């Protein structure tokens, strides 16, 4: 029994994968709580998808993927923020247009004759490919994002609870909304290598939705979402090892399973 639990992590490759997904889960969970409370799940998904041109661009130019992802995300975050501010159209429509343009641009680049054959990895990720240096980067990034989330706790709460009124409570809805998108971009960047830009959203939204279903205390929800995120990561790696399925996809499915289980639980007390 103990062997069955430790086998997947006997090798350093498995250990590194476990640490990586635990770091991602611990950040993505609480961030997801804010994303859900700010009703930005759609923007979050869009942001992750819209960074494809940056990833493909990096692959084409031969620069580190993280750099391309960062550039792509920054572009996507700004495009989405700008699209949401257009008063002439609904925010949803603006985001959809921005994302489709960026995804299309990514596809054009990816299907170019001299593009490397790595599109699958960019889209679906591979936690088993994580190096020691990647882990150091993830750990640092995770610490920074968690610290910023803690510092921004009150503006994030005020703007989610009272979007129209937040200014009279001393929080700028516009600045806070932009900060949330940037935190989201940073988290997506952290997670892209392990989970890919199509699956990362599962680990952001599902544990958070589950936690919000289970508790009515904000602090508890933030902590529970982090714990469920870590749990999803570990469960996904086990499933990947024993069922021989893709690790990134297994983690995304495990995260969705936490949400389905939360739906079955009695209504939060």
């Amino acid at each position, binding site marked *: 029994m103990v062997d069955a639990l430790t086998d997947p992590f006997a090798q350093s490759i498995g250990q590194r994968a476990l640490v990586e997904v635990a770091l991602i889960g611990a950040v993505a969970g609480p961030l997801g709580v804010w994303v859900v*409370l700010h009703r930005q799940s759609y923007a979050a998904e869009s942001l992750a998808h819209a960074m494809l041109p940056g990833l493909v661009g990096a692959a084409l130019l031969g620069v580190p993927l993280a750099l391309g992802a960062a550039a792509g995300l920054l572009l996507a975050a700004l495009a989405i923020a700008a699209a949401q501010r257009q008063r002439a159209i609904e925010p949803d429509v603006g985001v959809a247009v921005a994302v489709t343009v960026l995804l299309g641009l990514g596809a054009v680049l990816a299907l170019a004759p001299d593009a490397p054959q790595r599109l699958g990895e960019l889209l679906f990720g591979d936690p088993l490919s994580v190096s020691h240096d990647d882990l150091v980067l993830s750990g640092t990034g995770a610490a920074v994002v968690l610290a910023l989330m803690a510092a921004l706790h*009150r503006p994030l*709460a005020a703007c989610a609870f009272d979007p129209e009124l937040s200014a*009279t*409570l001393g929080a700028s809805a516009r600045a806070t909304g932009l900060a949330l998108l940037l935190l989201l971009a940073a988290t997506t960047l952290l997670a892209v290598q392990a989970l890919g830009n199509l699956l990362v959203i599962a680990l952001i939204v599902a544990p958070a939705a589950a936690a919000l279903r289970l508790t009515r*205390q904000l602090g508890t929800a933030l902590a529970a979402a982090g714990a469920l995120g870590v749990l999803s990561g570990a469960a996904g790696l086990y499933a990947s090892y024993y069922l021989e399925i893709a690790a990134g996809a297994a983690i995304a499915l495990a995260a969705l399973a936490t949400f389905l289980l939360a739906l079955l639980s009695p209504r939060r007390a």
Partner: protein
Amino acid sequence: MDAALRVRGLTAGYVPGVPAIEDVELDIAGGHSLAVLGPNGGGKTTLFRALLGQAPWRRGEIEVRGALAYVPQTERSRLDFPIDALGVALMGRYGTTPWYRRLSRADRRAAHAALERVGLGDHARTPYGELSGGQRQRVLIARALAQEAGVLLLDEPMSGVDRPSADRVLALLAELRDEGRIVLISTHDIDHARRFDGVLCINRTQIACGSPQDVLNAEVLARTYGAELVRLGDGARAIVVQHHTH
């Protein structure tokens, strides 16, 4: 508490050059309450936003002594937000501390005291979404008290609240006024307006402003509500037909 509010020639709106309210004049000293009466779309919300400095454009003068706090309608609250009554009251302290600093014990005590003040000290840990409409309204008032407001602006505080709760909210507002604050509410209910020291009738422009006895007459109400006013057979009472547009 020494609050005061003076408004001269206030014109404000959402699009420059297209006023939603014009030429509003107000003079209120601390310890007085005022009901802003008017039809939906008549400019009540715009007036409050202009007073809070949140109207996209405005002309005229506003002089305020004492902090302003806005109390939104409970019907607009997010009931799914994971927060308890104390957490909402504590939001009143957010503006006093920079975002990166922790709130102090004194802030928590102030939020607790504000909840006690509105009679909800026992409900500090109750999830906001599980409170009744009247209790939620009082929690939002507690949040304004935690902001140490000298001037309270309440948007339709009796809407979505049952009658006993509405009476309780009105009694609480009278107490807060007696402590020297200025209490402004917006309402479309003439009977509620009657219970305030002053009434401002507004329908894009200021129709009348004065004591309820002077202002609440058939002529002023007809000009305030126009075609929305329905006269009953006995001629003594008027009811307002509300056209809700949501």
